[in-house]
């Protein structure tokens, strides 16, 4: 825990800067209101007022915390005002997209490692695909999946399909790159050893290449799930979604509810944190099953 002290003090400094900025950014609003009401405010009163604005330019940390608490704990989970409800919707799209992305990434990586022609023709496009802004494609994906009725055929909502596709598009790439690296990581000596045991191609893959790629795989999963979450949130924006954290942000922005905006942003942050920590636990379990010593 050598890092705990520095991390905590940096966090405290950030909190301090945030409070200072709250006063600075909300003060004009407070002074305007006071001038309109012909009230004289002392400095102390002004500062106090900046902390409890209804529509602040910059919400004070405790306001955000209160709104988060209200959204997460006070409302029932089934209520549409509950942030947990919206977070679950986003989580669903994140996980389906993440799963799809991981499967596609691993399959492509296996293809690329074993077939030179796939390596030559698909790998450059995989790289280019990540420089294409997927959010530009998002409205199109919605139109396509709606008109093809993909969701109805699979028995799920159409909105989920488009969000899933966007999340998968963003999350397959980290997996692909690390798996190609991981599957190629056994050195020639080890491959030769397996050949002297007259191992079959499948045995070589299962007993050498796959286990040696696992550390690469888990490292990429953390990047990948963060990308999937971004994809799910972004996918909610132009798709006319009414549910989910991204939709909550859009609604809050359009109806001028800054507090809700901040709360949704921090709910998304919390969700990302939970997902990354969960993956860390899975990784440790897998390491232990593979016989790694802590």
């Amino acid at each position, binding site marked *: 825990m050598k890092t705990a002290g520095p991390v905590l003090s940096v966090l405290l400094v*950030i909190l301090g800067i945030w409070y200072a900025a709250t006063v600075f950014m909300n003060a004009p609003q407070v002074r305007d209101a006071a001038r309109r009401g012909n009230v004289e405010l002392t400095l102390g009163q002004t500062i106090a007022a900046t902390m409890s604005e209804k529509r602040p*330019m910059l919400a004070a940390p405790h306001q955000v915390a209160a709104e988060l608490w209200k959204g997460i704990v006070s409302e029932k989970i089934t209520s549409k005002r509950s942030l947990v409800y919206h977070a679950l919707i986003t989580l669903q799209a994140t996980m389906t997209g993440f799963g799809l992305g991981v499967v596609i990434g691993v399959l492509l990586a296996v293809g690329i490692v074993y077939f030179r022609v796939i390596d030559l023709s698909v790998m450059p496009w995989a790289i280019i695909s990540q420089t294409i802004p997927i*959010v530009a494609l998002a409205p199109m994906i919605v139109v396509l999946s709606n008109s093809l009725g993909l969701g109805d055929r699979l028995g799920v909502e159409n909105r989920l399909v488009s969000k899933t596709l966007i999340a998968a598009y963003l999350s397959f790439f980290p997996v692909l790159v690390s798996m190609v690296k991981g599957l190629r990581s056994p050195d020639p000596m080890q491959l030769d050893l397996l050949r002297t045991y007259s191992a079959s191609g499948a045995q070589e893959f299962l007993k050498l290449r796959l286990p040696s790629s696992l550390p690469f795989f888990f490292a990429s999963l953390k*990047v990948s799930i*963060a990308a999937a979450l971004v994809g799910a949130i972004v996918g909610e924006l132009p798709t006319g979604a009414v549910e989910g954290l991204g939709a909550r942000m859009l609604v809050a922005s359009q109806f001028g509810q800054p507090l809700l*905006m901040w709360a949704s942003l921090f709910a998304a942050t919390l969700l990302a944190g939970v997902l990354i920590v969960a993956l860390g636990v899975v990784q440790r379990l897998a390491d232990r099953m593979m016989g790694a010593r802590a």
Partner: protein
Amino acid sequence: MSALWIALAVCLLGWGLNLWLAARGGRAARVAAPVIFGLGLLALWEGVVRAFAVPEVILPPPSSVAVAIGANLGLIWSDFVQTILKGAVTGWALGCAAAAVVAVLVDRSPFLSRGLLPIGNFVAALPIVGVAPIMVMWFGFGWQSKAAVVFAMVFFPVLVNTVAGLATADRMQRDLMRTWSASYWQSLFGLRLPAAMPFVFNGLKIATTLAVIGAIVAEYFGSPTRGMGFRISTAVGALQLPLVWAEIAAAALAGTLFYGIVSFAERRVTFWHASHRGR
């Protein structure tokens, strides 16, 4: 159906050609194979759309997208200037510059870098696009709010990579600088910044794709009447699908070019690094 058969024949021909190229190897294959693959996909797209008479409001064929590009060049250019040049590139440049400066400052204090690195790593994994509505509230509908979103998105990845990069110069090399009685700045500019460049460029490349995404997403929260995100979302509403795909093609080209320019610069600056030697 004949269109589909022709398209399939083109695809098979291209795949055969790629098999031959893969067996032959060499530099020409590296360039030709992906191009042939891409052309094959386009042919398949055109063939499927024609064969099944897919309406244009669902999926326009590449040929009508090409016509739309030709007919709307001026419009696409003004959107490109608004979104990419004003929003993404400005925010990217400011964000990367700020991150580099902060990284050098943080690097002077081990306490700060130990505290900031875990936080930076965590923040770099967060969905920062979420600040878009807040930035639109602060900076208005113009390109300034887009640049601000991009700034927030690129700052932490570049910061984390630069701080990690500044730590790469090893002890021996630093001691050598000291025996030459180099000042802090001399050893920073002479040794540590150049040594950090592979890491810095890694961050810069991640930042380019983030920048384009950020600039377009911010437009969904409010924009003037031009910009790529604005055009795409309104044109979808008006069912002008060829124009939408034309904008998508332009955005893809812009994103790829942006990335390409940065990786070209990387190759010029870090020519000494192992990953670029002997190619």
